[in-house]
Each structure stands twice: as structure tokens, then as C-alpha cells.
């Protein structure tokens, strides 16, 4: 992991007052290695043309580049290639599923009054509001797993919450606030026992650990490219072939059709059905390069590196008086995202002082407002780690927090 930093030009950027950048905000978006930028540029300068539509050589090469990107990304998550759909983001992927589940054309997958959707209190807004809206459209009801005070899913009422009326369980793999890695096995087992599908928000897991859709046993999975070393403007929606088959598309236009008259249209099969229009070709190629970059390092090495950083960080932060970790305060089932509060200093002010030293953290509700209410805070400061982070950066974080306490005279 030592040499990876050279692949990320931005990491040598000089920040305010000559400070070096310590980027601890990969949970929001990751930085990109030069290999990803080069892959995108190569697409534009060597094979840019609209895919799937032309018989000329450039169009052939563009299609080849785009479809091999799909293949690479599918293999990376253990999926079939035709089950792997390019969207613009994880947000779009989750909304796409919710729209399908509200369309009567999706047959038995379409929700109706009396049906239930289950989420959790730690969901990102992107895996909460689409379901609220789906319930509003269909008359289904929304229920959720509460969160324990150490930031775990409270599954004590699993069988009551996921009951026979449940059609969808939509849950995050790893919390973008707490770092908690959720125990999927019990949830998947119960959901399938009652005939519900499981939608996994894997935004915070796919970039950081080995994820295999078949092994997890889920039915749908979404993640964003930009959090996984890839370009902005791309996400992945994966779904089981037999479910994608049943589902109505939600974006309509070119390339997703089988035939069209003025009054009617029929659809191509997946993945095409869910990719209306000229797709985000360069971004797909860029994300494939990102995936190759991670595979070359090995997801297990990446995960190990991040766990080492996290353990070091927990130790360092726990030594600071007045600091409270929001989320699991141990290494058990957690990833490299740590949220905390500092007594007497608002997260915004903590972030500002850290920024002065080039330390980039996130502050606020992290698009998980209900979770903030659960913990009775208006926001937290969050540090999140990735493969390019170092122990020294974490020491700088701890030091920075102490400086903030000195500055605001709270310690």
C-alpha cells in the first residue's frame, strides 16, 4: 500500500497555509488514481462513438470498450454480465428499483396497499426516501429496524418487523456514518423465508472489501463509482436475472427498446432495458480501470490496510477527553469510517480547525438525518479512510482535534 499514493496526484496538493492534504473524506467521494483518468482519456481519444448503434469501426471499438468494462465490473462483484447495469449513481440505482416496484407492469414485484417495505434507521437518504415515496405511491407501509446505542442494527424483533406482508428489505451493507458492517445472513434468510427481496446499499462496502453478490445471497445491489476510485457520474445496479426480467424499466428512450410505434413500445432485455440513451461510456471504462486497480492490489489487502488504520484511529481518538465515538467503539464488524462528537465544539467548528491543517473530514448529518436524531445530535464529525491513507494522517487528525479543543478552550 505504500506506493499507491504516487498514483493519486491530488494527494500532493498544497492546502491552506502550506499544509499538506490529509484526505479523510473518502466516505463522501474517493480520489482517483491516474490509471482511471488515463483510461477515460484513452476512450475519448481512441474509440469515442455512440455504442450499440453503428456499424462503423469506432462504434465497434466503443461498444467493445463499454461491454468489456461491464464484464470486468460484473466479475468484480461475482455477478453475471447481463445482470450488471450502468446508472449514473447509487442514488439512481436505488430509485430505479423503487420505480419498478411501483409499476403495475412489474407484476408480482409491484407493491400494493398492505405490503411492507423494511429499511433501517441508519440508512443514507438515498436508501430511505425512494422507499418512502414508493410507499406513498402504492399504499404500502414503511417499517424499520431501530439502532442500538452502540450503533448496531437491533434485530431483536426481526421476525415481527420482517413479517409475511414484507415485500422488500432495503438495507445498507456498511453505515456511511457509524462504520457498522451489518449482519446480512439473518436478514437475508428471514426476508427470503417470507418471500421478500433484499436490496443492498453497498456504497460503503464494495470499495473497501471483497463483495460477492452470490455469496451474500441478496437480490439487488447498488454502489457508486466515485466512491470506489472511479469517475463521477457512474453507479452500478445489480439484480438477479429473473427479477430484472420481471421488472419494468423506469427511464425510456433510445437503445432500451425492442420495437416502437407512435402509441406503444416494448423493451429489450436486461441490461439494455435499464440503460436508455447514449450511456456514460467513458465513465464505465473509467470505473473498470478503477476495479482493475483494486483487484491488482487485492481487496483483502485493501481491507486489512483500512482495518489497521481504523484500529489506530480508535485508539488515538479514545485517548481524547471530551470525544465521544458515535457508532461501534471496537473493531468488531466495522469498517474505516468513524464518527464522533467533541463536547463543547460544534462539528462545523471542528472541521474548520482541522481544515486549517489540511485535514479534510466531513461534518454534519451525512445524509442520514434520522440517525442523527436517534443519537440526539445535530451532526457529527466523520473521518473515513481508504487505501491511500496513512497512520501519520490519523495522528494528524488526533493532534488537530486537540488543537481545536485548545482553540475553543473546552479542555
Amino acid at each position: 500500500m505504500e506506493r499507491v499514493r504516487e498514483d493519486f496526484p491530488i494527494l500532493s496538493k498544497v492546502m491552506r497555509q502550506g499544509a499538506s492534504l490529509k484526505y479523510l473524506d473518502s466516505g463522501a467521494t474517493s480520489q482517483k488514481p491516474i490509471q482511471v483518468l488515463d483510461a477515460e482519456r484513452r476512450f475519448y481519444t481512441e474509440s469515442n462513438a455512440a455504442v450499440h448503434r453503428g456499424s462503423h469501426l469506432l462504434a465497434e471499438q466503443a461498444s467493445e470498450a463499454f461491454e468489456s468494462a461491464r464484464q470486468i465490473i460484473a466479475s468484480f462483484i461475482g455477478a453475471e454480465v447481463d445482470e450488471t447495469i450502468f446508472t449514473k449513481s447509487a442514488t439512481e440505482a436505488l430509485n430505479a428499483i423503487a420505480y419498478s416496484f411501483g409499476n403495475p407492469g412489474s407484476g408480482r414485484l409491484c407493491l400494493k396497499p398492505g405490503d411492507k417495505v423494511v429499511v433501517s434507521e441508519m440508512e443514507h437518504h438515498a436508501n430511505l426516501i425512494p422507499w418512502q415515496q414508493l410507499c406513498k405511491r402504492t399504499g404500502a407501509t414503511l417499517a424499520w429496524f431501530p439502532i442500538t446505542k452502540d450503533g448496531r442494527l437491533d434485530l431483536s424483533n426481526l421476525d415481527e418487523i420482517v413479517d409475511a406482508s414484507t415485500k422488500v428489505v432495503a438495507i445498507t451493507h456498511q453505515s456511511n456514518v457509524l462504520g457498522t458492517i451489518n449482519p446480512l445472513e439473518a436478514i437475508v434468510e428471514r426476508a427470503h423465508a417470507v418471500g421478500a427481496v433484499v436490496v443492498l446499499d453497498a456504497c460503503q462496502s464494495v470499495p473497501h472489501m471483497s463483495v460477492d453478490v452470490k455469496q451474500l445471497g441478496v437480490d439487488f445491489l447498488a454502489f457508486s463509482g466515485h466512491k470506489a476510485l472511479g469517475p463521477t457520474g457512474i453507479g452500478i445496479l445489480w439484480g438477479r436475472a429473473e427479477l430484472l426480467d420481471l421488472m419494468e424499466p423506469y427511464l425510456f428512450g433510445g437503445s432500451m427498446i425492442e420495437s416502437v410505434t407512435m402509441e406503444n413500445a416494448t423493451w429489450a432485455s436486461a441490461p439494455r432495458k435499464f440503460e436508455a440513451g447514449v450511456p456514460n461510456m467513458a465513465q464505465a471504462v473509467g470505473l473498470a480501470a478503477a476495479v482493475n486497480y483494486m483487484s491488482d492490489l487485492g481487496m483483502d489487502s485493501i481491507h486489512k490496510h483500512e482495518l489497521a488504520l481504523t484500529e489506530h484511529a480508535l485508539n488515538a481518538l479514545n485517548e481524547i477527553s471530551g470525544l465521544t465515538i458515535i457508532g461501534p467503539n471496537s473493531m468488531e464488524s466495522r469498517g474505516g469510517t468513524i464518527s464522533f462528537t467533541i463536547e463543547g465544539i460544534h462539528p462545523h467548528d471542528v472541521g474548520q480547525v482541522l481544515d486549517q491543517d489540511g485535514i479534510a473530514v466531513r461534518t454534519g448529518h451525512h445524509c442520514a438525518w434520522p440517525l442523527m436524531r436517534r443519537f440526539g445530535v445535530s451532526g457529527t464529525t466523520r473521518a473515513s479512510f481508504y487505501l491511500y491513507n496513512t497512520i501519520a494522517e490519523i495522528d494528524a487528525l488526533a493532534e488537530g482535534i486537540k488543537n481545536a479543543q485548545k482553540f475553543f478552550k473546552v479542555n
Partner: protein
Amino acid sequence: MELESLYQEVILDHYKNPHHKGLSAESDIQVHHVNPSCGDEITLNLVLRDGGVQSVTWNGVGCSISQASSSIMSELVTGKPVDEAMRVLESFSELMASKGSQSGDEEVLEDAVALAGVSKFPARVKCALLGWMAFKDAVVQVNGREEDAR
């Protein structure tokens, strides 16, 4: 020149004078296939008799490759036991997927080996397969019906 290797004389002949084109009055089944990326279409009538392909007739619009390929296909499968026809189809599909690395088994594919060059042009492979996929679909549907009847 690559163009001649793609458009061999055999292909141009079949294109100008397609065989089995024009739908039979009766059929066990009629299928309709389109190539959504270009709008080409084929309608195909199939008659099976005693486990063999008694007749394949078709109509439709398409490029030289799709027309010639449908013509060659119908020549090839007519009169063959269904099993054997399906093996020919397999062999042709494999040739089309070969990206120019195979030249095709002339024993099995006869005139269809002239389409080997198409496999170098990914965008044209679908044209060459249009008629074959319609035929396959027709066979599957007839067999399905028989299973249901049992």
C-alpha cells in the same frame, strides 16, 4: 481487400436470389423477429414432420448479410432431422462468435461458411443470426407446445 472477404460471391448470390423467401400458406408456427438496433425484421413459417424439418419459409427486410444468411439457413435445415438442424445452428453460432478466428466446418455448414468473415464485424453478427434465431425460436415453441400437450 476485407470487403470481398465479407461479401463473398455466394452471399451476394443468395442476396439477389434468396431461397425459401415467401411465406408458405400453412405452418406449424409463425414467428416474427426484429433486430432492435437497426429495425430489420423477419417472419418465419416452420413445418415439422416426423421429427424432421419439412419446410422453412420466410419474409422480411434486411441487409445483404441477413437476407443471405436466412436464405442459406433455410436451404441447410430443410429436410434435416430437427436434432441435426439444431447441431448445424450450434455450429453456425459458434462460427459467428469466433471473432474471425474460425473458418467454419464446410461439411456441416456448406454455403454458410461464406459468412465466416462476418464474425470479424461484431455489429454485423446480429444480422447474420437474425434468421437462425427465428428458426431456433420456432422449433423451441413447437416443441414446447408438444410438451404441454403431453
